[in-house]
């Protein structure tokens, strides 16, 4: 008995794992599956593409460039860097009801918010309300960490310093009279940014926290005076500031400025003439950039995005096309004698 056991001591275990016989599903691909599969996937993609495209087409977008490069542009006078506190008026008309809710964006181009040094140029500790970081900003903010008098800049860094500071007022022109369209600036930033990531120091009044600091060089007003109308909308949790601090991924981008949801405009912008008053402050011509305002409504898929629909259509058609090619190849191989 012992001997017998010894004799098979080296016998391998007869298990599914050791014998590589684990139960497995082996997809048996054949032309009968592959070609219809391609057709089906292609059709599905075309379907999605059509849905996306149609949805996208239903979205109305109104884009107006106000950089003021051309001489006949209303903002031409403001595009000169030497002109301060320039205001220009942009007049446009809407033929039919611009269905709401309407989103009001500003857009910049040739603007590299994703430049690595730029992207890193902020102090997260400072922005989360750490008072130590107020007196000693992080190195990453350099050269926007201290001013020429060696005073710490709060908020420091290139992102904050370059905050977009054009402001807009939209009027509906009814019978020659300008009627202000109310713009909703609440909740345009991310919830986590507003509630978690960015915190004002717990000092009241807020102004005291900024003692012995200076405002960013480019800014006309310090951070605690960003919104004079709403004291709660100041400091690092100012909505416009939060929107700006969320960097764009690509050099041509647009950022949400306001929503038009209130009063008479809850259903959208009625047809008619409108006048947009722009406080033109932000220089873009120096780096060949452009500025624009964008009015858009949204669908379930967000803003207007024709590319995605077209891409789906193209890829889907490609699949169908390929399945046709495959069918031809298959036919040639299957009935070679007939050729």
């Amino acid at each position: 008995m012992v001997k017998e056991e010894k004799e098979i001591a080296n016998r391998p275990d007869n298990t599914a794992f050791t014998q590589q016989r684990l139960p497995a599903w082996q997809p048996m691909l054949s032309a009968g599956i592959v070609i219809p599969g391609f057709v089906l996937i292609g059709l599905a993609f075309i379907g999605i593409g059509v849905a996306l495209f149609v949805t996208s087409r239903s979205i109305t977008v109104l884009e107006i460039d106000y950089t003021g490069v051309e001489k006949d542009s209303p903002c031409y006078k403001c595009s000169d860097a030497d002109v301060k506190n320039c205001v220009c008026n942009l007049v446009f008309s809407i033929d039919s009801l611009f269905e709401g809710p309407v989103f009001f964006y500003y857009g910049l181009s040739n603007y590299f918010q994703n430049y690595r040094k730029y992207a890193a140029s902020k102090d997260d500790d400072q922005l989360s309300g750490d008072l130590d970081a107020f007196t000693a900003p992080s190195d990453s903010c350099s050269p926007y960490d201290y001013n020429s008098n060696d005073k710490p800049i709060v908020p420091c860094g290139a992102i904050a310093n370059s905050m977009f500071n054009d402001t807009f007022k939209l009027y509906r022109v009814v019978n020659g009279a300008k009627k202000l369209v109310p713009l909703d600036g609440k909740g345009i930033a991310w919830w986590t940014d507003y509630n978690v990531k960015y915190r004002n120091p717990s000092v009241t009044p807020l102004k005291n926290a900024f003692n012995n600091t200076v405002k960013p060089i480019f800014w006309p007003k310090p951070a605690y005076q960003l919104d004079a109308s709403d004291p709660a909308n100041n400091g690092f949790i100012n909505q416009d500031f939060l929107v700006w601090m969320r960097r764009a991924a690509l050099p041509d981008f647009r950022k949400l400025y306001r929503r038009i949801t209130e009063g008479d405009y809850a259903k959208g912008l009625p047809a008619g003439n409108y006048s947009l008053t722009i406080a033109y402050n932000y220089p873009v011509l120096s780096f060949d950039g452009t500025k624009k305002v964008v009015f858009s409504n949204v669908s379930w898929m967000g803003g207007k995005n024709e590319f995605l629909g077209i891409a789906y259509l193209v890829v889907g058609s490609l699949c169908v096309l390929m399945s046709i090619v495959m069918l031809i190849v298959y036919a040639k191989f299957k009935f070679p004698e007939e050729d």
Partner: protein
Amino acid sequence: MKSFLCFRWGRYADNLVRSYKYSPLTFLPLTLFEQFQRAANLYFLLMVVMQCVPVISSIPFYITIFPLLIVLSVRGLKDLANDMARRRSDSEINSRPCDVLDSQSFSRAQWKDVCVGDVLRIHKDQVIPADLLLLCSSEPHSLCYVETADIDGESNLKFRQALSATHNQMTSHPSEETLAAFDGVVLCEEPNNRLYTFRGQMHWRGESLLLDNEHILLRGTVLRNTEFAYGLTIYTGADSKILRNCGKLRVKRTRMERVFNQVVIGIVLSVLLAALLLAIGAGVFSSWVMSHTGPTSALVINGNPVYTGFLIFWSYIILLSPAMPISLYISFEVIHTVHSLFIGWDMEMYWQQADRPAQARNTSLNEELGQVGYLLSDKTGTLTQNRLLFRQCCIAGEVYGDASGKAEDTEPMDLSWNPFSCGGLFMSAPSLVQKLRGQQCPISCQFLRALSVCHTVMAEWKEEAPVYQAASPDEEALVGAARELGWVFLSRTRDFIVVSELGVTRDHRRRMSVLVREPEGGLKLYCKGADLVILERLQKDCLHQERTERALELFSQACLRTLCVAVRSVPEASWEQWSKTLDQSATMVTSDRDALLEKLYDQMEIDLQLIGVTAIEDRLQEGVPETIALLQQAGLKVWVLTGDKKETAVNIGYSCKLLDPDTRLLEWQELRQILQSPDPGVTFFKARQTELWAVDKQTAEVKTALVLTGPELAEFDQRPEWGATFMRLAEQCQSVLCCRVTPGQKADIVSLVRKHTRSVTMSIGDGANDVNMIKTAHVGVGLAGVEGGQAVQNADFALSQFRFLQRLLLVHGRWSYRRISFFLRYFLFKTCGFALVHIWFGFFNGFSAQSLYETWFIGLYSVFYTAFPVMCLAFFEQDVNAESSLKWPELYRSGQRQELSTYDFQTMAVTVAMAATFTANVEISLITRYWTRLNVAAVCVSVVMFFICSRITHSTRLFKASPMDYLFLGASDRAFIDPLVWLTALLTTWTAVLPSMTALAINVILNMQDKHKVHSASSQPVELRSRLRRGASLRRSSYALSQGAGPGRLISSGTCIRSTVPTVDEQVAADNNSTDSQLQINMKNNSDAPNHA
């Protein structure tokens, strides 16, 4: 005792085996040192260092150090585990017991306590603990036997003998005192690794005695057939010959590894180039930024675009470093190990009879098994079983036995009258037995007498029966057959059976003779040998010659190994004269002594009278023809390299289906002409075309095989330019048979194939003579067979049966190859695709080395999000007949230009990360054709891991703990509920896998056609024609004489004496039925009488 000797402490290695490398203190530095010799590890260390430089750090350092640490610790743990195993086996060996002389008596000690100068007592069947000088043994003449299977793989016994001086002085009883009083001084050469030579001197009692290899018992050998032996320790531990021989194995590298190394170099170069171009871009962009006042103008470092570009270069090298597959080496090792385990676990390759599973001794060559183009096989013991069976014989023209059926089916004869019969004769010839027992036929008796006396076999008594120790299995079969039929070889004793060896049994003589004085007083010469040799030495008009030759032909056709047996009565007068001359010549010490002896032997071996022919079946191993046919179908070229004769090799070739019946054999004469002709290819083609026997002119492919012999191969050395031509011809041939080749030539042939083809070569063999070729080939396979373990020791894979080769190659090899190539390609796809995105993104962020991914994603991507499925693929993938080619995911860059612009950076990062994870997992799903539960689980786990880990690293809790490290707060929360993110990721994924998907689909469609072809081809009936060529004489006679000198010298020196030899009376009793055939052959020892007077 020790002080008597010239040996000093400290000058010699102790007898401890230390194969371990690490101690607790040295482990860390040593393992780190070893691991950082790998380029990839060093590269990553460099990356970590660079990432600590803030100006260029594009990714935080902990992201790279994380995978690096995993790789280092896995490797380190593996080394540590191996080292622990080595320590355990060391301590097991070191604590083996042995008897050491301690002043006046022997006491138990452990191996590790043995020192140079100790006198040891070795018991029967004990392993010798150190290299010893044999002082004396319990046997007469202080002889002892050792088995060297562990050293050279030869399983036959070898003898060692003490110096007569020590033997004479120390065999008195009790021996302890004399041993203790031994005060000789031994001078020996520096420790070396030469197993077969030893030179030394012993100064003792004023005498200086020369020592050589014969006086030495090597560590690792086993004492056999000897009660005990006493030895003086001369080399211990690391100085001993066997440990000196434990040289490093030549590391075989697989092609895949070479490809991989090239790929790594390629990646490094591409990364450098990409970084350089991007850095130039960064410089240009910086100068543009400088010339335009904007938000980023002040960020150009030092206001110097060139300096910025320089820094960006290093930043990009860091950022693109994930393209370098750091974990590839370690994954490779893990996969190889698992594949090797699978080979060992395979029940189909487990040989029940010997309780031996297949073994992958070298765990890094698995995928080579799937690429073998040339299989070079030994014959004996590899294709054949090397278990020889006596199947037929022809005595005086009468054929006995029938070899047409299987050996097992032979009806066993009633041999109960023979007390020594112990089975093993697969011949049914009752008429022969009747003749023998009835004393009717003196010539049959002579035939069997010849078989029982003319050999070099040694008998060992175990349980009242003789066990034969033969140097060659042929002899064992013959002596065994004689035993079964009543002619029992019992033993050699000096007094009763003294056998005169006519010369040392060397292969080139291909015969062997023995002179016997018969009981009646007559002197007979018995001779056995190859047919050609014997037939030319026969008397004229020999009786039965014609019928015997017919029998020879018959046996040859049945693929039996034949030997002729002949006899001659030697007149007393001529014997005396011859013997005198022999004595004179034997004492000569001139160089031409051998030639002289040879001439003398020739004088004696004349006028022989043919008695008969033996036919031994060298059975093919089970399944050999099927395996060879299968391998040939798989496109392998199977060559046979054998030390055997051409005829034997060719017949084995036919019987194992290596050659088809209508295969044309191209021999040297023709081949030489072809090789010499100006246009060998054309000549070769013509030679094939003009063959008349090409029955079917329609079959375009005329099958040809090359047959070469060793001496002919030697010509290749002088004509190296023939090598390439030869290989070109060989490639068109069905097979090549090389006969009569030496072990060295076997290796040369392998090198020739390696040199002139790009194919992977595999050698398979079982004997010590195959070691050379096993080591030379890309992959060496050792068959654990009859001939001992040396082939296995040197092989990369060890099998028990030749037929297991088909599974090893066609199943495991193919799987391994496919799994590993898919693994490699997928791995590169995964890492490069991952890193390439940064190049594309560089065009949109001013070449600022901005990472598109969240840092944590970079760290976790290769380990958690994509590693498991690919490992599962590499472990379990099976039946991959569709080859999907991986292409660059250029479409990663598709679209997404203007339209994603409402996206903030973080959402886009999550989208791209999601697409990357999806793509990697979809791609692996496409490649996987064999979905086990583990595969499914791995894919699911990877994708789920991505979502879970993303949520974790983007969570509020982690952000609050360290705002700087977890910047992506809330990004995934928003992204994962955005339909656009999903749609984009879906589109990107699909577009990225579309090329490989299409390739797969097209493959499926095209493969159908191949399958169809294969199917229709195999349905055609295969006509088997007679395997014999008409008109061709196929006489095969082969005679396997022992490879080395064998125990011939020992036998003739008359010192091989067992104390338990049965007396002549016992022999009489043993053969009481036929007194005539008793082995009471009293004869004179011719050649050695003067030496041992």
